Every structure is written in structure tokens, then in C-alpha cells.
């Protein structure tokens, strides 16, 4: 058989037609070998079963959050109808009711008990990320800062510790093992079976490695695409609405699979025994998937406990400093607060006005301490991302979570948006209440609404995040190519 130097025009140049037929022949035999390998076929079946379980589990998780969100929305609808009735009913039958009339916007808000929700995206069924640990609905009524009224869903700590069995877990943990199991002995296996010399006289071994790995790559990509399509269908994703995210999701898969194949190629290129290859690849898997991420995780410290207490427990003793202010001091401090909304100037401040001014001061202080906590969390997150070049597995998980909006940055964006919304809502009410404006159903219907749109994880962001992984792939392929040329002459 003639030996050709591989070039970039390999597939398209007619000169290499013969190579193509050799390649197809090798793929054909690889397929036959695969079909005869019962152990491997059983592993495939188990993997398929696990992948389907993972998809269904993810869907179950998402449906559960959706059901809870639906319950909140139903409760909000009931509260809304009660609040509307309250707004429509003008009761000035007694002097005290007449006095309280000006505080009706606040009363309507209390009846409404507004909640904002961090809804699970369709992709969250495929990559749950941290969505199960973050609070996903917040009470944004006027009386409290949303940071002081966090509702943590009920969890089983053991379940959280074990982690989620979702599709991203299958891709990140299991697919590399499949790749290793398929490829660790592509050449050494031939040596073990004493067919190596026979093959060597028929085809350059460097080419044989590439052809065999190509077959395995197509096999794994096909399998993963099958999982992805099944995941998309079961999660109710549609091409019309989610094509862009689907393509990014698939690109992450392809890059990750290429990454592991390039590592396998590098190890195979050193022409070692099957045992040593398996040992090295197994060790690399453990180091990359377990040791590196968990070691980087060790470096990060939990946020400051005192700041968290101050941001969360804003009632009672802790807020006495604001309650002890004189009326004028409280109002002056209230006027000095920064915000982009019309400043209510209270002409004849009543006790309730002062109370709300004090509450605003308390809530702002809670937001300030929460801001410190969030800043620390952001810094910690950036630190973790800075380790990206040595932590490619986490970067892949991060990329999946970006598509699914289940990562810390998405949650913090939602929190930021919810806090701004709550402030906007409060100032809308202050404007009505403290400026003694008319309040009827028209004004009630103009209460600000919460809108939060997750930013799209674009290809450019994905390319930027995965540049190191691409670099590792190129490096491994480059070194591997040189080594195969050197060691398999």
C-alpha cells in the first residue's frame, strides 16, 4: 500500500481516493469488531439507559420547579383580585379611615404580596447546575428588602451533596470514560493480539491510529447527538425558538469530545502498552474531573458571615439606629438616598410616612450589606473562572450552565434585577402615597411589572470561554502527530 503524507486537502483531493477506501475498510472492520464485542455493546446499552434516566430526571426537576412557580402565580392572581376589590372600595366612613386613605397604595401592595420568580429555562432540565440550591422566588413587597425575606425551598442535603444526574453529568463524566475505553488500546491492542506486524506492512500505523480514532469519534458524536436530540425533544425545545441555544449546546459537546479524543491521541502516540495507556488515561480523567476542580474549590472561602447576617436579619435590635432618629433626621436621610425615581417631598409628614422613611433606610442598609456579599460572590466566581486554563472540565460545565442559565452569574443577574425592581416599585408607591396623589384602579394597574430576560450565551462568549480548551486540543494533536511520526515508523 502506498504511503501518502497527510495534508489539509486530504478528504477532497482525488489523489487520496485510495486512502478513502482504506479508511472506509478500516471503519467497516472497526464496526464489525464493535458488533462482536459483547462487553462494549452492553456498556453502550447501559450508557443509553443512564442518559435517558438523566434526561427524565432533569425534566422531573424542571417540572417540580415549574409547579411551585405556577402555585406562586396562582396565589398572586388571587391576591391581585383581592387587592383590586380593595382599591375599588373607597371607604371614608370614619375619621381614621379618612386619614388612612392616603396610605392605600401601600395597603394594596401588602394585600398583593408581590413575588418575583427566577423561572427555570427549558435547558435547565439538561444542565441543572446550581439551580437547585438558589432560592428562585422572592418576596418583593414594600416592607422588606428581598434579601431579608429569602425563602429557601425544602431540600435534602444528601441529595444536594450527591449532585444531579442530568444530561450534562452524562456528557462530562461518562462520555470521557467511554472514549478512553474505546481508544486506550487502538494500537497496543493490536500488539497484544499479535496483529500489529501484519497491519504495519499494509498501512502506516500513524494513519491507522487516525482512521480508528475517526471511527470512534463519529460513533461517540453520533451517540451524543442522539442523547442531545432526545433531550431537546423530551424537554420540549423547538427549532423555532431554541435553535441558537441548541447549536451552542451541541458545539460544547463536540468541543468536549474532541478534547478527550485529543488527549487519548496524545497518550496513544507514545506507543506504550495497553495497561500503561489505561493507567495514564484513567489518571488523567481522575485528575481533570475530580482532583483539579475540587482542589480549586478548596481555595475559595465562604462569604463573610457577619455581612450575611446584616443583610438577612434586618429587624428588631439591628435596626434601632434608624428608629432612634428624630422625624426630621429620618426624613432628611430618606431624601438623601440615591435612586433614579421622582423624589417624594412629604408636606405634612404623618407617623406612617416617618415609619416608611425609616423602613426605606433599613431596607437600603440591608441591600448595601447584601451588595457586599454579592460582590464577594462575584469576585470568588471570577477567581474560579481565572483558573479556567487548568480547569477545562469546569469550563465545560460552566458553558452548559450558561446555556441553561443555571450558573451563579445568571442567578446574581436575576437578584440584581429583582432588587432594582423592588426599589422601583417602592418609589412608585412612595410617590403616590407621600405626594398624596390620587390612587384608583388606573394607578394600581400602573404598578411596575417585573421583567427579566436571561442574556443569551453567544457563540463569541462561548469561543472566548473555550479558547483554552481549543488550545489544549491543538497542542495535544500537534504533539501526538509528531510522536506518531517518530514512534510508528
Amino acid at each position, binding site marked *: 500500500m502506498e504511503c501518502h503524507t497527510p495534508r489539509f486537502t486530504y478528504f477532497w483531493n482525488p489523489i487520496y481516493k485510495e486512502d478513502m477506501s482504506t479508511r472506509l475498510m478500516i471503519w467497516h472492520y472497526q464496526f464489525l469488531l464493535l458488533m462482536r464485542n459483547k462487553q462494549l455493546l452492553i456498556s453502550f446499552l447501559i450508557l443509553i439507559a443512564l442518559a435517558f434516566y438523566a434526561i427524565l430526571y432533569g425534566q422531573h426537576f424542571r417540572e417540580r420547579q415549574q409547579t411551585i412557580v405556577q402555585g406562586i402565580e396562582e396565589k398572586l392572581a388571587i391576591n391581585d383580585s383581592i387587592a383590586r376589590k380593595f382599591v375599588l372600595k373607597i371607604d371614608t366612613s370614619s375619621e381614621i379611615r379618612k386619614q388612612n386613605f392616603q396610605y392605600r397604595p401601600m395597603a394594596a401592595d401588602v394585600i398583593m404580596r408581590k413575588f418575583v420568580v427566577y423561572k427555570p429555562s427549558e435547558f435547565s432540565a439538561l444542565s441543572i447546575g446550581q439551580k437547585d440550591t438558589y432560592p428562585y422566588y422572592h418576596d418583593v413587597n414594600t416592607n422588606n428588602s428581598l434579601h431579608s425575606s429569602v425563602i*429557601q425551598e425544602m431540600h435534602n442535603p*444528601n441529595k444536594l451533596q450527591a449532585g444531579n444526574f442530568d444530561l450534562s453529568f452524562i456528557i462530562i463524566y461518562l462520555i470521557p470514560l467511554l472514549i478512553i475505553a474505546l481508544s486506550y488500546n487502538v494500537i497496543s491492542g493490536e500488539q497484544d493480539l499479535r496483529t500489529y506486524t501484519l497491519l504495519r506492512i499494509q498501512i502506516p500505523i500513524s494513519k491507522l491510529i487516525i482512521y480508528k480514532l475517526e471511527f470512534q469519534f463519529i460513533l461517540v458524536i453520533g451517540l451524543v447527538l442522539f442523547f442531545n436530540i432526545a433531550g431537546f425533544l423530551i424537554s420540549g425545545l423547538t427549532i423555532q425558538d431554541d435553535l441558537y441555544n441548541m447549536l451552542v449546546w451541541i458545539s460544547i459537546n463536540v468541543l468536549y469530545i474532541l478534547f478527550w479524543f485529543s488527549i487519548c491521541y496524545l497518550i496513544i502516540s507514545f506507543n506504550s502498552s495497553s*495497561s500503561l495507556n489505561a493507567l495514564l488515561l484513567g489518571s488523567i480523567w481522575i485528575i481533570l474531573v475530580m482532583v483539579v476542580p475540587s482542589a480549586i474549590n478548596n481555595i475559595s472561602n465562604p462569604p463573610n458571615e*457577619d455581612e450575611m447576617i446584616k443583610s438577612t*436579619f434586618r429587624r428588631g435590635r439591628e435596626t434601632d439606629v434608624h428608629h432612634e432618629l428624630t422625624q426630621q433626621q429620618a426624613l432628611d436621610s430618606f431624601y438623601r438616598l440615591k435612586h433614579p425615581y421622582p423624589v417624594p417631598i412629604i408636606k405634612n409628614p404623618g407617623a406612617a410616612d416617618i415609619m416608611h422613611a425609616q423602613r426605606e433606610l433599613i431596607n437600603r442598609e440591608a441591600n448595601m450589606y447584601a451588595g457586599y456579599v454579592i460582590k464577594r460572590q462575584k469576585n*470568588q*466566581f471570577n477567581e474560579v473562572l481565572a483558573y479556567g486554563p487548568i480547569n477545562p472540565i469546569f469550563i465545560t460545565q460552566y458553558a452548559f450552565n450558561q446555556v441553561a442559565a443555571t450558573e451563579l452569574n445568571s442567578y446574581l443577574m436575576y437578584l440584581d434585577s429583582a432588587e432594582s425592581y423592588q426599589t422601583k416599585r417602592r418609589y412608585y408607591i412612595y410617590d403616590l402615597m407621600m405626594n398624596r396623589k390620587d390612587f384608583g384602579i388606573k394607578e394600581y394597574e400602573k404598578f411596575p411589572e417585573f421583567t427579566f430576560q436571561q442574556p443569551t450565551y453567544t457563540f463569541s462568549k462561548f469561543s472566548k470561554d473555550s479558547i483554552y480548551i481549543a488550545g489544549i486540543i491543538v497542542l495535544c494533536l500537534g504533539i501526538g502527530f509528531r510522536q506518531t511520526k517518530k514512534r510508528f515508523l
Partner: protein
Amino acid sequence: MNKYWNIIRYEWLLLRRDRAFAILFGFVLVLSLYTIFVGYKKYQYVKQQREQAASKQRKLFLNQGEVNAHMAAHYGYIVVKPSSLLSFVDPGVEPYTGTTIRLEAHQQNDPVFVPASGQSSLIRFGELSFGLLLQVIFPLLIIFSSYRSVINDRENGTLKLLLSQGVSLRTLILGKVLTYTMIYLFFLIISVLIYALLVKMEIGTYAWDQILYRLLFMILIYFLYYFIIASITVFLSAVYNSSSALLVTLLALWFVFSIIMPKATANFGAQYAPLQSKQSFNKSMVEASKTGIDNLPPIEEYKQHFRDSLMKAYHVTDLKDLPFRSSGVLMQADETYRNVIYDHAFGGYKDTIRLQNSIATFSSLLNPFQAIKNLSMAICASDVEHHFLFLEQGEKYRRKLVAELNHQDAYGEHEDVSKDYFHRIPDFSYQSPSIAWSIARRKLELTSIGLWSVILLGLLISGTLFIKKI
């Protein structure tokens, strides 16, 4: 006995000459020291944070001045779970449980500040703790260093030579199993000694005996665990022909046992016995107080009955005529009622969690990794049962505190308590349970480790008779 000793010496000699083992040895040593020191540093950081927070909150409580007793009960008390010294060996579920609770009148609040809820998904890859090293990495290293032990002897003809000299295959395999178990036990003992030294420096003699018992127990169960791993590996090494096929099989087993099964059983448990949502939990308590539960009447009926019986006992027709302030007594009655409702609902929550976890617990009979994982968390006081204990102690303290303040509200000289009054109320102090308490909740896991050890010992003694390949 001499034969075993000779095999251990021979095996150790071979390992010492192996460069790969020397690298592995160094790697294990570095990782062990790294996890111990990083864990210790983290423990100190968390400890300092929690102590500072707790002492600041205590000061605020003590210095609240003259205040209405019931208002003080509303202001409440903030308790912080102290950081456990053993949690840096195995943090267990601590990153996923709240560490701080606001205790106040009328309601039971959830623990807040779940460390994981403010972190990225990196936390889901786990912490490189000493526990992770002992449970997951050490078994892998046992596999890597021992999977060729008998295959090598067969390939280079040493096996035949040894057997011809009168060493039985059983003795040989048992000797090899002992060698690898001892090597990793040696690592464990060294690390535990370093750890014990750090602990001694940190706490002196305080609670030292309890920690010592826990460490000794840890050594014992890990000895059995490593014996199980080494037995499986060496036995299969005697059965298999191809070292690469054996390695792939062992890696697959390790992966299924330590990664797939714990995750799958936990996820399956969550689906099998789903937890109530927070909303429905709260709603169930409201419903229960409206309708009454067990022997309790509905809350309004209960309150009316209590008021009536109070007036009847003191022969008055109005609560104002009572010889004490009725508000404190009525609020305490309300507390007592709500406590029963809460205990009922929270008991249901704990039962569901235990039911979910029972799937993983039962799987430990098949999976020694799951057994050691649960036992390790129990020994290090970082499992869900210890979390429940903290919640129970916090709730007990809340009830005592609120009862005391209600009593003061009812029978105190003035409605406002004096400045010094709060100094009489003792601080919350978490009482760590004994090791017997921790282990008593892990009987099935202990049985699993014991059974695996006995069965494998039996296999090594009798199963070697059936190995024909020499």
C-alpha cells in the same frame, strides 16, 4: 505466619524498586498533607467567622437595654452552628445546610446561609477533603498499585516458582492483600497522627477523648474498607489473564460504585419520596391549626378554652382582672399549641428525608463505598442526622427562651425588663453527640462493611482453590 511475613517483605521489596510506585507514594503523601493543611486553614477561617458572628449577636442581645419582654422575644436570638473540628476531614453535607438560625417568638425559621447557595457549580465537583482522598482516591491507588500483582507473577513465571516451593496460592493472595491494605493504612495512620497533632494544638484537652475515639474508629473502618478493595483487586488479578482488561474492569467497578451509584440512589430517592414545597409545608401548618391535629382542637377553640379555664381557675370574668398580665400567659399557650403543629410538620419533613436517604443506605449493602461515605460523615459529625440535631437543639433553646420571656411578660415586675435581665439568660451552646450516638444511626452501613469483609475473607480462603490458571 512466617510465610505471610515473607510475602509482605517480598511484595514491599518489589514495590520499592518500582519507580511508578515511588511516584504514586509521593503523590499520595503530597495530596494527604495538602488536604489536611488546606482543610485546617479553612476550618480556622470558618471557625473565626462563626465565632465572631455569634459573639456579636450575643452582645446585641445582652445590650438591648430596657425593653418589653415580648418585644425582646420578637427581636429573638441568632444562633450559629459552631464549626466542627472533624468537618475538615469530611465536610459531609455541611456545604448544603444552613448554619445560622434566627430564633424568635411565634415561628420557627429555617437555617440560612447555605454555603453552596452562594457559590458556582464548581462546588458540585466536591471539595478535595481528606475524606474524599480516603474514600475515592486511595481505593483507586490501591487498584493502580495492585492490579498486576498476581498477573505479573504469572507472566514472569514467579508464580510457578513460588507454588513449587510450597507457598499456597491462598497464602500468596492473602499476603498480597495484607501488604496493600497495610501500605494504605500506613498512609492513613500517618495522616491521622498529623491531624491529631493539629487538633491537639487547637483544642488542648477539651473534648479530646471524643475526637480520639472517633479517629480510632475511623482507622478501623478504613482498614476494613481498604481490605475490601485490595481483596477484590488481588483476587481478580489471580483470575484475569489480561492486565489491561482487568484494569478496565476495575476502573469501571470503581466508577459505578463511587460515582454512579451514590448519585443515582440519591436522585432516585428524591423522585421516589418527593419533599413538600415550602409553600405547601407552610400551608399544611396553617390548615392543621385551623382544623386541629391528633388530640388538639382547632386553634381558636383551643385559645377560647384556655382563656375560659384561666378565668375559671382565678374566679374572674375578665382577663384584665387576673393577678398577672394575661398577654404573656396567652402567648405561651399559643406557642405551646404551635409547637405541636410544627413538630408534626417538621417530623414529616425529616421522615421524608430519611425515606429518600434509605435508598442509598440500603444500596450500601451492595456498595461498600456508599457504606464508608455514610459512616465517614457520621464519624466526622457532618451528616444529615447531625444537622437535624443542631436544628433540634436550636428549637429547644428557642422554646426555652420564648417561655422565659413570656413568663417575664406575665409575672415580671414591669412590662419592660431591666438592662441586666438578659445576662441571666445563658448563651446557646451546641452539644456534640457521642460517637455511640453517631454510629447508632449507621447500623446498616456497619453491617455492610462487616459483611463485605467476612465474605471476601471467605473468598480469599476458599475461592483460591478454584483458580486453575497458574
